[in-house]
C-alpha cells in the first residue's frame, strides 16, 4: 500500500511535467499578450520591452520553462501580472469561496442523485421510470446558461426567494450560495441520475442479487445493502475525480452571482494572459487531480475488497 502510494506519487512527476509543458506551450506561444493588455492603448515600444523584461518574458523560452519548473517545485508562482497579488494568496482566498459554492451542492447532489437513481432503478421499467428518464433528459437539454438566467430572474427577482447575488465572508455567505447551489444540483441531476441508474441496473443483473433475494432479502434491502455498495465503485470513480475541479468553482455561476471564486479568476486570467495565475491554477488543479485520482484508487480498494493496491 505504502509502496503503491509512493509509486503513484512518483508517477505524478511525468504527468505534472506534461501538464507544465502543455500549459507553458499553450500560453507562452499564444494567447493574450499580458504586456499589451497591461499597457493598453498606445504603449510606447520601450515601455513594452521594459515590462516584458520585468516579467521575464524576454528570456529564451527554455529558460522561462525552467523558471516555471522551479516555481512548481517551490510552489511559488509569483505575482499576478494583473494585480500584483501573490498567486498563493489569490488561490487561498478564491479556493475556499469556490469550494463553498461548489462542494456542498456537489455532495448534496451525489446523495440526492444516488437516492433518486436508486428509486428510479427500483421502479425500473415502470411508467414512473420512463417519466423520470424523460424528465431528466429534458432537464439536460437546456443550457446551463439558461438555467442561471431564468432561475435568477424568476426565483430571486420575481419571487424574492433568494438574494439576487452577492457574497459575504464566513457563514454569512450561506444565503447567497443557496440559489447557485440549487442550480448546480439541478443541472447535475439529469446526467448523474441517468448514469447512476445505468450503474444500478447493471448491478441488478448480477448473480449476487439473486442470491440475496433467495436469502429472503426484500427489494429495498437488495438495493441499498447489496447493490449500493457494489455500485459505489463506479460511482466513486465518477465523482471523486471531479472534486479537484470543484476548486475551480463554476465560472458562470460566479459571474452571475458575484461570487469571488476561482472560476471567474481563471477566465479573467485567460482573457488577460495572466500567466502566473494560469500556470499556478493549472498546476494546483493538476496536482489536485492526481492526488484525488490516488484517493479514488485507495477508496476503491476500501470499497472493493478485491482490489489490492501494490
Amino acid at each position, binding site marked *: 500500500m505504502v509502496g503503491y502510494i509512493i509509486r503513484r506519487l512518483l508517477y505524478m512527476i511525468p504527468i505534472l511535467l506534461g501538464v507544465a509543458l502543455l500549459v507553458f506551450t499553450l500560453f507562452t506561444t499564444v494567447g493574450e499578450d499580458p504586456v499589451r493588455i497591461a499597457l493598453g492603448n498606445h504603449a510606447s515600444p520601450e515601455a513594452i520591452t521594459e515590462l516584458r523584461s520585468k516579467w521575464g518574458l524576454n528570456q529564451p523560452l527554455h529558460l522561462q520553462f525552467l523558471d516555471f519548473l522551479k516555481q512548481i517545485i517551490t510552489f511559488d508562482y509569483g505575482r499576478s501580472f494583473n494585480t500584483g497579488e501573490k498567486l498563493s494568496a489569490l488561490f487561498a482566498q478564491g479556493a475556499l469561496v469556490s469550494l463553498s459554492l461548489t462542494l456542498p451542492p456537489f455532495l448534496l447532489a451525489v446523495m440526492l442523485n444516488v437516492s433518486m437513481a436508486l428509486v428510479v432503478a427500483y421502479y425500473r421499467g415502470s411508467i414512473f421510470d420512463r417519466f423520470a428518464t424523460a424528465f431528466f433528459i429534458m432537464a439536460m437539454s437546456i443550457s446551463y446558461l439558461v438555467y442561471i438566467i431564468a432561475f435568477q430572474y424568476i426565483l430571486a427577482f420575481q419571487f424574492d426567494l433568494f438574494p439576487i447575488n452577492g457574497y459575504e465572508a464566513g457563514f454569512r455567505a450561506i444565503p447567497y450560495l443557496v440559489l447557485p447551489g440549487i442550480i448546480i444540483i439541478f443541472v447535475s441531476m439529469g446526467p448523474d441520475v441517468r448514469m447512476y441508474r445505468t450503474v444500478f441496473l447493471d448491478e441488478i443483473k448480477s*448473480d449476487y442479487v*439473486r442470491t440475496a433475494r433467495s*436469502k429472503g432479502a426484500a427489494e429495498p434491502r437488495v438495493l441499498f445493502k447489496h447493490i449500493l*455498495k457494489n455500485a459505489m465503485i463506479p460511482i466513486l470513480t465518477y465523482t471523486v475525480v471531479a472534486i479537484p475541479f470543484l476548486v475551480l468553482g463554476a465560472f458562470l455561476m460566479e459571474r452571475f452571482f458575484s461570487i469571488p471564486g476561482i472560476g471567474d479568476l481563471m477566465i479573467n486570467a485567460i482573457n488577460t494572459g495572466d500567466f502566473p495565475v494560469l500556470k499556478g491554477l493549472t498546476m494546483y488543479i493538476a496536482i489536485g487531480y492526481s492526488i484525488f485520482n490516488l484517493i479514488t484508487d485507495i477508496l476503491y480498494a476500501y470499497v*472493493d475488497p478485491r482490489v489490492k493496491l501494490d
Partner: protein
Amino acid sequence: MAQEVLLNVENLVVSFDTDRGKITPVNGVSFQVKRGKTLAIVGESGCGKSVTSLSIMGLIPGANGKIEGGAIEYDGQDLLKFSGTQMRKLRGDKIAMIFQEPMTALNPVYTIGNQIMEVYKLHREMSKKEAFDHALAMLEKVKIPDPKQRMREYPHQLSGGMRQRVMIAMSLACNPDVLIADEPTTALDVTIQAQVLDLMKDLQTDLGTSVIFITHDLGVVAEVADDVVVMYAGDIIERGTVFDIFKDPKHPYTQGLLDSLPKSSDTKNEELQAIKGMVPSLFDLPQGCRFKDRCALAEEACGESSPELEKFSDTHEAACFVTSRNNAA
C-alpha cells in the same frame, strides 16, 4: 423415513416476454419432492430446469417472466398464492438455494461472515453475537478450515470449493426444508466436486433436508439422486427413481443422453451414439413432440400431438408415443 411429499409442483407454466416474442421455457411441469430425499432435474441448457427452480423460489415475477399457471404446493400451501412478504419469509428460511458460480453468487464486497449472518438477521431474531456464533458454527459444519478467520474474509480470498461451501453454509443456515441446488458443482474441478457432493450428502443426512438437484451431469445425478426428472425444451419427458432412469431409460432422449457419454468401454474406433441435431429454439418449437426432430424413433404421430407422461411402473413415467406403444405391445 416417511415417503411424504414435501413439495408438489403441479403443471407449472412459466412464460417470458422478450424482444422477439413470448416464450414458454417451462411448459406444464409437475413433480414431487419427498421429505429428506433428493430429486434431480436433468437436462441440457435451455430445457427450463433453472427457470423451474427460480419459480419455486418465487423469484420469477419481476424481470419479464410470468407464471402462467399451475401450483407449487409446499407443506400443503400453494406458494403461488403467497404474497411477496410471505414468500420472502419463506425464502432462505424454509426454502434455500445454491447456485452454479459461487464467485459471482456471493456479494464481492461483504465478508463471508456478514453474508451468512444476514440470513439470521432476515429470518431469526438474534443479536449480532448470536448470529456470529451461528454463522461460525455453520462454517464449521461445512468443514471450512479456520472458520474464524474465514468469517472476516471476502469471497475472492477463497478457492472455488471453499466458496461453494460458504454458499452451502449460507443456504443451510436456517435449516431449510428444501434446498435447491442449481448446478452446484459444475464450475468445480472433479476432486473438489467430489468433496462438495460428499459434504452435501452428509449434511442432508444430518439435517433431513430435501434437495432439488439441478444438473446436466448424469454422473453427478447417479451419485446423488433418489428420484430423477428429465426435462427437454420445457417439458418433463421422463421421471422415475434413479435406478429407473439409469437402468431402464424409456424415453429416447434419456437413452440418447446416456449413450452419448463416452464410457470406459468406448474407444475412438467406435463412434459415440450421439443425438443428432440440436435443441430447438424456444422461439421456434416443433409441432407435437418437441424431441421428434432429433429422435431416431420418430414417427408421423409424433408431429401431431405432444405425448403425455405415461406410467411404466409405480415410480417410472415417460412421455413418448413409441415407447408406450412398444411397452404396451
